[in-house]
């Protein structure tokens, strides 16, 4: 279902929620180390992956994202002790719920990336960009307008269908 633009490739837009202490710092490290990676991931900084409200994930899709990435500290290493476990608990249910809404599992991802793993940021961003590219754009159906789907009345006298009496 991939959209062929003029150059033939669809550029996915992925919104990422990175926790300040680990993943955001790792992304900074990737930058300091000049690791090049796909430009498709737009990072939103939160203090903890436990702050990620499922509403944010849905809002990202609604606003046009083709994928959502959540980054947090490895289990046991959360700067706030347990925030990342909460992210994980919500994520499991959220994933299944998204599948119920017809959104493929691969469009939403939770990754544990520690502050020293700049290379993982590079790897995950590249990987996810390609994965979502293969899935194609997420076509969320917009609300139907009032006139859409209305049958235009046929000119009088022209039969549309016949019913035998």
């Amino acid at each position, binding site marked *: 279902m991939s959209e062929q633009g003029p150059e033939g490739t669809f550029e996915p837009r992925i919104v990422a929620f990175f926790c300040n202490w680990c993943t955001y710092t790792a992304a900074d490290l990737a930058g300091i180390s000049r690791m090049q990676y796909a430009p498709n991931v737009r990072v939103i900084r939160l203090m903890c992956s436990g702050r990620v*409200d*499922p*509403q944010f*994930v*849905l*809002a990202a*899709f*609604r606003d046009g994202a083709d994928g959502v990435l959540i980054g947090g500290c490895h*289990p046991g290493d959360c700067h706030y002790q*347990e925030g990342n*476990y*909460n992210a*994980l*608990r*919500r994520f*499991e*249910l*959220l994933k*299944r*719920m998204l599948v*119920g*809404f*017809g*959104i493929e599992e691969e469009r939403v991802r939770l990754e544990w990336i520690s502050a020293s793993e700049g290379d993982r940021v590079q790897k995950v961003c590249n990987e996810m960009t390609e994965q979502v590219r293969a899935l194609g754009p*997420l*076509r*969320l*159906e*917009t*609300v*139907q307008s*009032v006139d*859409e*789907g*209305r*049958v*235009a*009345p*046929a000119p*009088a006298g*022209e*039969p*549309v*269908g*016949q*019913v*035998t*009496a």
Partner: protein
Amino acid sequence: MSKPKVAFYWCASCGGCEEAVVDLNEVVLDVVEAVDIVFWPVAMDFKVSDVEALADGELAAAFINGAVRTSEQAEMAELLRRKAGAIVAFGACAWLGGIPGLANLYSRESILEFVYGGSPSVQNGDGGVPQELIDVPEGRMTLPHFDEDVRTLDEVIDVDYYLPGCPPPAGLIAQAVMALVEGRLPEKGLVLAPDVALCAECPRAVTKPEDLKVARFYRPYEIVADPETCLLAQGLVCLGPSTRSGCGAACIAANMPCTGCMGPTSRVIDHGAKALAAIASLIETREPGEIAALSEQIVDPVGTFYRYSVPASLLHRRVGTKGGTATEGAVAHPAPTSTTGGES
């Protein structure tokens, strides 16, 4: 001074909201004393032409229940909007999409195929679905267009107030009507119910522990719930914490967990997502495998968390279920060659 004129109308609904008005019992007498009901298809013999004959804005208010999914419902909503000073979206369906809103998880195609053919309890000869336009010797017959999409009322017309509930509790209905009559309606756009979650009025709240953690989720049929203790504490998925109060915790009184019909508070954009966040945060274990297993115990997350609010949710409908193989307009089916069962 003449009594304010009001209208009641039903769109894609079950009739429960009409019954709720009747369920006012003696209070309904006060209501009919205070207002002049000039249109109520289920209970009174007024016609659409009577509504069309009214001046614009002549109705003080129109209470419209049900979601919108046919062209007729959309037209009636628009008509009533012109004729009414205030539109009250009455009930969960009108506000959030309600139970009919679950149809947004399926394509129009598949719904028609199932209802008119695929269902095990249907015998439909060679098949055949309702046609929007058909010419018969007697003339031309039309049916309203069955939309692709279930919409909330405010996606079709401008809505002034929302009365939540499936159906709205009698007390809230009476309050709303009397507020209208006495000119005490609050600022436009508000939901006419307390803006605080059900736990605030639930009698079992005291039994809910401060550090509630769930080790297992149960479906209502799996256990016999203790009638005194918080249902969430017993592992039942109760949406009380994420759902507005104002219903007197009626379902809890019947020993059943809240399913969310009173909708979210004003501070929440997507009811299902917030309800999910809260329930998931109660899971006790930290082990990924165990978390996944517990999540599986909630068998149908969409149905559980968005029972009444699929159309109002941020995603609005299931991806890939709009359009199907049909082009805009009528479903192209071959005309039936025989009429088993007959048209009604």
